[in-house]
């Protein structure tokens, strides 16, 4: 049978995978290995799914060499992790332009045995800054039809030209795999490398999730809120007059059902002026607050 356009396409896809493969490594930090992508000569980006208590992390190169690695820092909001493997001598993959919905893309990871593993799909959704559910912390996320098992976490998500367009997470939102866009992942890792920790937006409160009594539920129907249990002195929260016992219901109209959600919402909110909806003594208040960065 003569070569067809489909054969050409198939070969192009395999070439794209082969081109990106040298930048995709295996990361061993827990019982089950995950994947990582080379960010710089001795730096690998992966997700928090790959790491344990931060000792005994290793990176296995595409050639099968096991190298010692150490945690540089991780970002509790996006769950991205930067690792240093001094002997890696890797090269970062080329970064592609932002994809469009409908583009064919391939997730690449390393299996348990370090074999190259690929999974193709299309870019299904490019979420705005505040999609519902997980991934809210990230200004924009890609969701794909490419099925990804847990070993894909931290792996590469590439376009048909073999260029990196995202970091796979192996998390799912409504049946679609979640991918962190390459530009955001690179920016996050750059910040982790510069500061040695995650720089993030800061209110200065600690809180716990509580159920709202039906009579107090706001118009949007939220049934839970964050009960403030601590307000740090000299913090944005203290300056805004927040009190222990306040119930935080929404930040800029984004519902806050739990402290995790507050952290994620903050991560996707610009520093500066914001509005907090608070229940205090049974009445709803809109409190202006100046979100800090720390």
């Amino acid at each position, binding site marked *: 049978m003569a070569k067809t356009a489909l054969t050409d396409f198939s070969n192009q896809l395999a070439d794209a995978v082969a081109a990106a493969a040298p930048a995709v490594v295996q990361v061993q930090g827990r019982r089950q290995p995950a994947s990582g992508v080379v960010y710089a000569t001795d730096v690998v980006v992966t997700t928090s799914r790959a790491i344990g208590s931060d000792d005994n992390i290793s990176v296995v190169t595409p050639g099968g060499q096991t190298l010692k690695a150490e945690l540089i820092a991780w970002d509790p909001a996006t769950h991205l992790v930067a690792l240093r493997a001094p002997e890696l001598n890797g090269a970062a993959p080329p970064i592609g332009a932002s994809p469009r919905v409908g583009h064919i893309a391939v997730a690449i990871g390393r299996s348990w045995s370090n074999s190259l593993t690929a999974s193709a799909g299309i870019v299904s959704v490019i979420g705005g800054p505040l999609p519902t559910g997980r991934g809210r912390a990230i200004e924009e996320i890609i969701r794909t039809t490419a099925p990804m098992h847990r070993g894909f976490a931290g792996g590469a998500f590439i376009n048909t030209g073999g260029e990196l367009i995202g970091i796979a997470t192996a998390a799912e939102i409504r049946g679609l795999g979640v991918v962190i866009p390459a530009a955001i992942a690179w920016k996050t890792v750059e910040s982790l490398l510069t500061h040695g920790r995650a720089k993030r937006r800061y209110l200065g409160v600690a809180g716990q999730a509580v*159920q709202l009594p039906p009579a107090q539920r706001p118009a949007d129907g939220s049934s839970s809120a964050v009960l403030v249990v601590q307000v740090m002195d000299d913090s944005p929260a203290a300056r805004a007059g927040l009190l222990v016992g306040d119930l935080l219901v929404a930040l800029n109209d984004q519902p806050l059902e739990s402290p995790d959600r507050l952290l994620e919402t903050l991560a996707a909110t610009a520093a500066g002026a914001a509005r907090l909806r608070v229940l205090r*003594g049974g009445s709803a208040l809109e409190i202006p607050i100046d979100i800090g960065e720390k």
Partner: protein
Amino acid sequence: MRIVLVGAQADRDRLRRELLDAGLDIVAETDTRPSMADGVPAADAIVEATSNGRASVLRNRALSDDVATEALTAREQEVLAHVAQGMSNKAIAEALGISDQTVKFHVAAIIGKLGASNRTDAVRRAIRRGLVVI
């Protein structure tokens, strides 16, 4: 432990004896959930009686204190605050002027006390328990 019992009259009646027998001190009863913001300064927990005869704890200050705050030492809380910023053990050691090994020991203790599987899980659990300032 002092509690506020909430729920419909009939549900409270069913549960009251059991709670008193368990040694709990019921300081107040209401049929609607009190506003958390009004505070329940005299109570350690709010217990809701439900129609199936069960009790659910709406807010349990004593529980979170016993399990976490009191269990974590001051040093562990300090280490936790750094772990929650995404810092490595080495960076935390430098920031606190202690050895890597000591940080590793503290992190292991934090992970154990929070019932977490690793450092990132420990941070997630600590955030939910109100142990991390955000």
